[in-house]
């Protein structure tokens, strides 16, 4: 990291914020998409989902996450930021289980655990770089 950031402008903090926005938006997209699945017209375009309020809330969250993401891209290499942003693949199944009532099998939990392991492998050198600053 070439220069010091205030905590809220720290790219790593913004990356965490981005993943939380993405998680919330994905869950709301599922809620909105389920609500509007009976609308048959233009089915494969997904455009009819715009009749659900949850889709609009999700879109706002997507925009916020996008703003966070381009800020992150300005400071962190894509090949590091993108794998780390995949913590959403842990957060989304957990949220689905907690809030949407979707069931997670034992194998799915194993998958989540492997993702966490991969994240740790990618994140460890990053944590070391941060410690030195």
């Amino acid at each position, binding site marked *: 990291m070439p220069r010091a950031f205030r905590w809220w402008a720290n790219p790593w903090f913004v990356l965490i914020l981005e993943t939380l926005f993405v998680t919330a938006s994905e869950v709301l997209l599922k809620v909105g998409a389920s609500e509007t699945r009976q609308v048959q017209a233009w089915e494969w375009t997904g455009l009819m989902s715009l009749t659900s309020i949850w889709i609009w809330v999700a879109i706002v969250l997507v925009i916020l996450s996008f703003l966070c993401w*381009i800020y992150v891209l300005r400071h962190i290499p894509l090949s590091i930021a993108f794998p780390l942003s995949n913590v959403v693949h842990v957060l989304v199944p957990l949220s*689905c289980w907690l809030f949407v009532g979707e069931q997670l099998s034992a194998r799915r939990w194993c998958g989540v655990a492997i993702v966490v392991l991969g994240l740790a*492998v990618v994140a460890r050198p990053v944590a070391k770089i941060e410690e030195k600053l």
Partner: protein
Amino acid sequence: MAIFIFMIEIFAAVVGQLFLKHAMEESNRLGFRDRGVLALFLSGVAALTISFFLTIALLQHFDLSFYFPIQGSTVVLIVLTAVLVLREKLTLRLLVGSLLISVGIGIVSVS
């Protein structure tokens, strides 16, 4: 049909991220008013928008906890294309980590 939509969705997601990252790098040097930077940025946004609506279409037919992880294959794709196209540094740790993430995501999606 679903496989076809999945493929377009993933392709748009990868291309969109590459365009965006490249635009942000160039904006450090040239500023946001530069036409090239703006064109790159808007192309990235357009690709991600396509990917976004295709995602909603797919969500209407699959459980989120099933569908979403399939997107995980984009992890390795984006890391490799970032290294090849944007000349970012590839370390063994990064490769192993992103492979683990993709595999983990794959396991979540087939179960």
